[in-house]
Each structure stands twice: as C-alpha cells, then as structure tokens.
C-alpha cells in the first residue's frame, strides 16, 4: 500500500533454477545410481553382546592441534571484538542491528549475537547453500557469489551438480520417479494437498490411521501416532505426561527438540556424559535416594531420554544396558530414532534391531520420516493404552495441523518398499547398499589417516577437522570438486571438535565413493587433516594408507567386523 518497503533487490534473490528436463535414464541415475556389482552389498547382522557393551574408542588429535584450535578461536574472538569496538563507533550504519534506536532495544544484543556475527558470518557461504531438484545421489546447488565477506550474495543463475554427501537421504527415497512418487501423485488426486484442521477435528483421514498402523507394526509397538513435523513431535511431547515433580535423565548430546520439549513440560533435568552408562546408573541411584530438591519427596517418575543414533557423533546408545538399568530401577525409557529408523538394523528397524532387543522393552519410541523415508514429520510409538491417553493429552493432535496426504503417501510407499511389499527385494538392496557404503567410506577414511567417530554401521560418518578455519577450507575445496558436504562446529559439537559430517545414502555407487575418497585424501593432505593416532584402529598403529591401496583392499575388508574397533 502506501509505504515503500525495502525489499531484497532482484539480483540478491535465489533464482528459480529448474533446468531442462533430462531423459528418464539420466534423471534416474542422477537420483539413484544403479548398483554396479552385487559384491558392493553388505547384510547387517545383530550385534553380539560383547561388542554392544564395549565403549566406543574415540581417537584424539595431537596436543598441538588442540592448542592451535584454541588459538584459532582466540584470534577470531579478539578480532571480532576489535571489529565490534570500532564498528559500533565508526560504522554505525552497518551495526544498526545490535544498537538501540528510538528507544527500542535491538532484536538481539551484541553479546548474544557475537558468535553468529563475527564467527559464523566468516564462513556463511558454507551454509544454507540453495539447491534445486531432488536431493538424491547428486544435488544441484544454485551457484552464488559472495560479496563483502558474506554480507550478501548474488546469483549468476547457474547451477552446479554435486555428489550429495549432505542430505539425510539414507535409503535414497528422495526421488522424482518410482513407486513413492507415483503414490504421492495418486494421492494428490484422491486426497488433495491439505488436511483441513487438527487431528481431533477433521484432520484424521483413513490414510493417517493406516500409516499409524503400519508404523506401529514396523517398529514393533502396539500403536503409534504421527505428526507433521519431526522437531515439533519432540518439542510438544513431554508436556503431555511430565511435570515439575518428574525427572528427566538426559544424555548430554540430545537434540534441541528433546530439550525444548522437556523444558516446556517443566520437568527437572539431570544430564549424564554421552554414552557413560556407569555415570548414568550412579545418577539414577542418587536421584531415587535424594528425590526432589528442597522437599526431598521421591520423584513421581523418572524418564531416561536418549537418541538411537547420535547425528553428530555417529555413535549408538547402549540399548541393552539402558534396558537393564531401566528395568532394575523402574525408570521409563525414551529412544529418539530420528536418524536410525529405516537406515540401520538388518531390516531397517533401527537400533532395537541392531542390538537384538525387544522393542517392547522400550517405553517410548520416537522417530522421523524426514530422513530414511524421504518424507516429512515424526512419529511416537508406545503401548496402545499410552497412545490413547496421549491422543487426549498431547497438544499437537488437538491444536496443530496434521501430516498432509502426499507426505503420508510417501511414507506408506517407502515403508512398503522397505518391508518388501512393493518391489520385493528392492528394500533389502537399499538396506544392504547403505550398509556397505557406510562401512566402506568409514574404513576407507580411517585407513587414509583421518579421525572418524562412530559405530561401524552408522550412516552418519563424522570426520574431524578441529581448527575452525579448516571448516570453510574443506567445504569450499570440496564444492570446487563438486562434492556437497556439511561442516558443523560449536555449538552443535564441543568447541574444538569441528567436523565434516558425511551422510551416507543407498543412492551412491562404489565409484562415487572412490571419487569421494580420492578427493578427500587429496584435500586432507593439503589441509593437514590426517591426524589418526592409531588409537581407534585395529592394530593400534598410525594409519596412513595409500589411496590406491585403500580402494583396492577396503571393499572386501569393510565387510569384516574385525577391521572395526567401534
């Protein structure tokens, strides 16, 4: 209307980049590479008890690397403060965001936003890269040119097709053709794209009920509920049954959604060091004896919250031990399987299957559809009487939008593929491919000399970079080599453990991984990243294999558990 609003200028906008339609075969290959040889498959087995109880061995860098990393941060922080000091005095215009004006406080204070403005901003070009099309085997990145130290970007309008190691497309269900897509298209005609209102009013369709039934059967629980957003599943879950007289014992690395949800419930929280079961037991014993602070009354209930697969570490929770503790001390157990459901276990049923435990022993199973299923949303699976009560008491089914029909169709179709109802054999192949790919890349990187965290079968493969300045270097160099990777740093990781996170996918072929290994090895040499001390390798020796040797020997070796310490 009257006032002119300052809009983003046209040249700084991400353009629509849908390219020329490709022929069907190329498109298919770009989204999901055909398996080149059946020997590049691996059937995951249930873990034996001894291995399950072994603590993961984390390799550590030499002391000077730690020192350099701290120094690196120190320099960045000092420079940041100097720039703030002068900027606020002499460049008022470009620091408007952190200054008071007309009696209004800034949106965020100088201190709160320091990390974002002065540290993250320097490497902002490594994040939020716009993409287009399907995030399958290859991802199409929209090219952008950074100006004024990432202050703004312009877009020449080109795209760049990169090997995709960044999307959570574990089983390769991000596709624009095939059974899942067809199912989604069919549903658009039949059910439309909207759900019309909350679940308890009009948002429950027969499709929702069917999906819930299928999920419950798949994960091995009596009943399940589904939600339209994974984050919100957790963030609005705990207030349905916890209050300030309840205690949540939480792994220190749990996802923000769990923390938000627990905070909203008002429950007391105690954290234990990631994966340390002895400390957990001690904490539980202490808490049962001590009870609530001040009043010393016993806790009403104690809920242990863990994740199945930790997305930044690639480590698994020690499920057999957790179940043992939970039974011994009458606690309840919540397992967030956001990353492990579908992607892990002999038939994709997540961590309970990997450890060979009965899912009935876990009180609450939570997971998401964004990752392995190529859809969106999350689920909660419990006993039927619990779900019934949750349907009454949870906010999401009563106030929020439900999962839209095309997403439901995608979930159903991908789930049916995994269990072999659609295209028998395809689901198994997808599972065996991601298992092989994960093991191959993990062992390959270790042999090349990199420090890699996590479990042998984890599709998340974090590779440590340490120095914050190596993050942008690695990310940019990989992009030049047409590989899209995700770099993560504090606060998602401990301060000094900046890392790159390779997310494995069934859609990648062995050749793709060889391409990746060669380039990572080369960049690793340049950036001095091969810091493996041998602590987490099988013979306790420093690993510095030649790349050709790695590619020649690893495909066979990676199928053998003896080469993996964790």
């Amino acid at each position, binding site marked *: 209307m009257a006032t002119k609003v300052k809009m983003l200028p046209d040249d700084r*906008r991400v353009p629509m980049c849908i390219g020329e339609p490709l022929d069907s075969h190329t498109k298919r290959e770009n989204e999901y590479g055909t398996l080149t040889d059946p020997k590049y498959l691996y059937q995951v087995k249930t873990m034996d008890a001894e291995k399950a109880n072994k603590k993961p061995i984390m390799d550590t860098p030499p002391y000077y690397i730690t020192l350099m990393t701290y120094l690196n941060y120190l320099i960045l922080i000092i420079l940041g403060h100097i720039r703030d000091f002068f900027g606020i005095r002499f460049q008022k215009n470009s620091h408007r965001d952190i200054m008071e004006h007309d009696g209004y*406080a800034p949106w*965020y204070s100088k201190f709160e936003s320091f990390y974002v403005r002065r540290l993250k901003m320097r490497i902002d070009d490594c994040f939020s890269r716009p993409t287009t099309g399907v995030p399958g085997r290859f991802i199409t990145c929209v090219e952008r040119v950074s100006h004024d130290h990432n202050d703004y970007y312009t877009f020449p309008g080109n795209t760049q097709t990169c090997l995709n190691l960044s999307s959570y497309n574990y089983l390769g269900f991000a596709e624009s053709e095939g059974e899942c897509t067809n199912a989604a298209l069919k549903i658009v005609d039949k059910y439309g794209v909207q759900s019309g209102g909350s679940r308890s009013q009009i948002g429950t369709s027969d499709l929702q009920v069917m999906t819930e039934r299928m999920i419950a059967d798949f994960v091995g629980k009596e009943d399940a509920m589904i939600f339209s957003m994974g984050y919100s599943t957790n963030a609005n879950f705990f207030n349905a049954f916890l209050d300030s007289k309840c205690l949540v014992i939480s792994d220190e690395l749990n996802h923000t959604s769990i923390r938000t949800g627990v905070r909203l419930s008002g429950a007391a929280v105690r954290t234990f060091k990631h994966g340390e079961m002895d400390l957990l037991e001690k904490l539980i014993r202490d808490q049962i004896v001590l009870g609530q602070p001040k009043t010393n009354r016993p806790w009403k209930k104690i809920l242990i919250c863990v994740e199945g697969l930790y997305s930044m570490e690639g480590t698994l929770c020690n499920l057999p031990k957790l179940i043992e503790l939970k039974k011994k001390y009458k606690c309840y157990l919540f397992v967030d399987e956001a990353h492990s459901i579908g992607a892990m276990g002999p038939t994709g049923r997540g961590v309970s299957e990997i450890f060979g435990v009965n899912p009935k022993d876990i009180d609450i199973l939570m997971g998401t559809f964004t990752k392995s299923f190529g859809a969106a949303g999350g689920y909660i699976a419990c006993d039927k009487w619990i779900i019934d009560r949750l349907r009454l008491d949870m906010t999401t089914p009563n*106030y929020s939008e439900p999962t839209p029909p095309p997403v439901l169709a995608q979930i159903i179709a991908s789930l049916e593929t995994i269990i072999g109802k659609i295209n028998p054999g395809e689901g198994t192949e997808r599972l065996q491919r991601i298992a092989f790919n994960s093991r191959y890349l993990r062992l390959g990187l270790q042999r090349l000399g990199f420090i890699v965290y996590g479990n042998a079968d984890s599709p998340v493969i974090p590779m440590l970079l340490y120095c914050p300045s190596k993050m942008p270097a690695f990310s940019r160099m990989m992009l030049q080599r047409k590989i899209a990777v995700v770099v993560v740093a504090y606060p998602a990781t401990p301060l000094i453990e900046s890392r790159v996170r390779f997310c494995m996918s069934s859609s990648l072929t062995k050749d793709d991984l060889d391409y990746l290994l060669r380039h990572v090895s080369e960049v690793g040499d340049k950036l001095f990243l091969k810091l493996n001390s041998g602590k987490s390798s099988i013979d306790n020796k420093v690993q510095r294999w030649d790349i050709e040797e790695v590619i020649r020997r690893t495909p066979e070796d990676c199928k053998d558990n003896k080469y993996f310490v964790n």
Partner: protein
Amino acid sequence: MSEHMAVPTAIPIPSAMISTSSAAWFYLQQGLSRLPGGHHVISYIEKATQDDPYRTAVEASLILYGIYYYLSKPQQKKGLQSNRPNLTKQEIDSLIDEWEPEPLVVPPVNDKETAERYWRLAKIPIVENHGISKYIDFTRDNKKESFENVFNLSSNNFLALSETPEVLEVAKETIRVYGVGACGPAGFYGNQDVHYNLEYTLAEFFGTEACCLYGQDFAVSSSVIPAFTKRGDVIVADDQVSLAVQNALQLSRSTVYYFQHNNMESLEELLEQLNESEKKEKLPAIPRKFIVTEGIFHNSGDIAPLPELVQLKQKYKYRLFVDEMMSLGILGATGRGLPEHFNMDRSTSIDITVGSMATAFGSSGGFVLGDTFMSEYQHIGSNAYCFSASLPAYTTTVVDKTLQIMDNDNSIVQNLQKLSRKMFYFFNSRVQLNEFFILKSSEFSPVVHLELKESFRNSKFNYTRDSLFSELLNLQKRKISDVFIEPYENEEMFLQEIVDAILVNHNILISRHTIVLKQETLPIVPSLRISCTAAMTEEELLNACENIVTTMVRLCTE
C-alpha cells in the same frame, strides 16, 4: 627470616601469627627450591611480601580457599541438593527397592472412567478421500458409525483453493521435479529455490521486508518468541491467546504480564505501570518489550483492535507480535490480513507476524513475516527453524500458486467475507439461541464460536469461567497430572451431544473447539466451532445454520 617478614611498625601483628607464617614459609621455600623454576617463585613472593605483607596473606588465603573449593563436592557447590543424607549401602538399596514410580501416563482405571474420558477418541471423524471438501464421507468409532455426503462445517480450508485443479496440478508438477521430502534442514542444503522464492513472494504479498518458513504452524510461535527474548525482557500479552502462544510465553524466560482481552484501557494502564517501574529501576540497557496478541483469536474468533494497539506500542516503545494464523488470507479486501482490514500498513504496524499455510492457503507449514534483521536472525536463533528439516517442496509451490490466484482476483476472499457475515448475522439474530448461547466471534471471522451463556452454564452445569479457571490453576499448582473436572466434562459431553444430533439429524458436521484443558494456562471454556468456506453457497450455508440452530435450541430446552 625476620627480614623477609618486615612489618611496618604502625600495625602490630600477633607474634604467634608471625611464627606460624615463618614456619610455613620455611617449608614452602624448601619445597619450591627443588622444583624447576622454583627460585623465580620464591623471589617473587619475597619481593611482594617486602612491599606489602597483607597482600601476601590475602593471596595465600585465596589460594587456600581455591583449593578447598575445587576439592569440595560438586553437588554442594551447586547448592542443588545440599542435604544429602548419610546412608549406608543397604539403606540406599532398600530406598531404591521401595521407590514406586507413577505409571508413564494415567491409566484407565475402570470402564466407567474410561467412558467418561475416552469418549472423545470415539467421536473423532475418520475422513475418507478429500477431507477438506464441502461434502465428505467419514466413519467414527472404529467404523461402527459411518456417514456419507455430510455437509462439512468444520474445515479450515477457508478459501477452498487447495482443491482447484490448477493448484493440484502445480503440486503434482513439483513432486515430479523435486520429489516429496527435502531431506535436510535449511542450513544444510535443505532449502531449495522454491523455498526461497516463496519467502520472497510471501514477504512481497504481505508488504514486509522478509519472511521465514517453518515446518508446522503450531511450532512457529513457541520458537520465534523465545529466539528474541531472554531474562529481563518484558512481554505484555492478551489474556485469551491460544495455546501455541501460551507455550511461547512459557519458553520465553521473560516477565509476562496479561491485559484483559482486547481491552485497550487495561493495556494502557499496564503499560503505564511498567513504564513507571522501568524508570525507577534505571536499567543499564533497554529491555526488549513485546505486546503479544492474535489477529483472529483461535479461542473465540474475535479480532484484535490493531489501530489502538499500534498507537500504544509506538507510545510506549513496544514491539507488536500478532499471531495471524486464522486471519491471513481472510481479513482485508484482498486477504492481506489484519492491517489491511484496518487500512494500515503491515511493515509499520506489526513487527512479528506469524502465519499458517495450513489454513486459508491450503497447504502445510507456517511462516514469520518481519524485517530483514529479525528474519535473518531466526535462521540460527530460532530452534524450530534451525534444527528442523525444510518443508516438502510441493507445499511451497502450492502456496505460491494460491497467492497468485488471490492476487489476480479477490472475489474468493470477498465471497468468504460475505458468507462469514451472513453466518454471523444469522446466529446473532436468533433470539431463541441467544438465550442459551453467546456468539463470541467477530462478523469477519469465517469461524464462529458459540459458548454457553454464563447463566445457563451455571444453572445447567453448576460452574463458571472463573471457577473453572481457579480450579484448573489449583490442580496445576498441585501438579495433579490427571485433570478431570466433572462439570467441565459434562459440558463437553453436552456440546458433543449437540454435534452428534446435528450430524445424525441433518447430516451436517460441526465440531467442538477441541482443547486440552490440562495444558491451558489461561481462562477458557468449551465452545462449538462452525466454520464456513468460500466453496459454499449462501443458501447451503444458511440452510445448514437453520438446522443447527433448531437442534441446538431443542437440546437446550429439553
């Protein structure tokens, strides 16, 4: 030794202290001289003592206290549970054995209680095929009841654009190019060109600098408010905001004050008081201050008085947060929401607007409109944005197409407004109905909320809004997990009877306003919720309303 401990004559020191400190120094010196570089430390201490012996004493006691503090138990340091009892292992074991937790959720005890609570589950319609259409088929209670071709007055698909073939074609076209899921959060390759472009389009359409997309409408408020508030900030909120905003206020860490629903005198009085007390406090920096309200209220369907709010916010330097989930696409001549309704400008009147793509825009997800600084900060500061996967691509193109249609032709919005008004005046003019029910909504809202009149509620169910709220607060304060307030349950059942009677007798679906009482932190009472969509004709709608009123009056007089 005494030369090291030279003391100014003016201040006498007890000889005992001198001799003990000399002895301590003697042994310390011996110990230090054995360490590499120890003589540097010795000469430093000697010099310092010569200059100022008291400083050495203070430093020594600080070091001793530091060591003591470091060695003391961490639990005691935090002061969390300092009264740790001294127990033997057997005592601990028996305490652990004795501990009996409550069940995870309150279990159904017997059949009667199950019936009293769980009837709600059996009343949820399970819709077949298009759940958003004008006429729907559905079953209830495990297919025990089944209904066909029911006139649908409970959907949020207000503009009914999501059913048009061109919109569906766009959705399919997008799925054919992008697949369904985005498979990643916005920061890590999850945001596609379509996401960015919808953000530009939404910002442009509503006249703000920028926009930010979220995965679910309900999760937006509770993420965006806490992103910009911390301890010491001030929030002044309407006392009838919906649960999504209540959750946001709870997570905000700020001091929250409430003003009476849509009462501008109450708000001004409160702002004036806060202004006074802020002046007295002399804070080092201005705190962030927000006024929080809704466009069309979820719980009642009435409208916030934007002009007065803007005036007050400017006078007292507050920022205005408006949850417009139910008003974007509905209010204003072209559906641009609350500011257009009052002929105002969004960018200068509202600082944070929260909208839903799952209501009028016929897709799914939520969004936040505002200035560039605010929007960019959400990318890292707002948890539901930063830690959550991007929306499926097709949801964005559907909204894009819907906005295009609305931009080209505002007749759909106009039609919806006409229907809303008709519906409002229809219910408003029914004298018989108004003996029992009170119409809470504004004439512009496509959702009509009908609440029992306070006097009727009191005589029939023997409770009032205030008594319900105080009982609820009481239960919440005592942390009773099982909130069961019988008169409230009875009223809910009564309203469901009305819904069922309308359904069975006239094949029309309306709904109770579904709330979870135990989660609510503000006064609320049950209500009936009737919503119209632009796909209806006036005749259909008014006929249905006539039937609804007849049934309602009949059940109330019985």
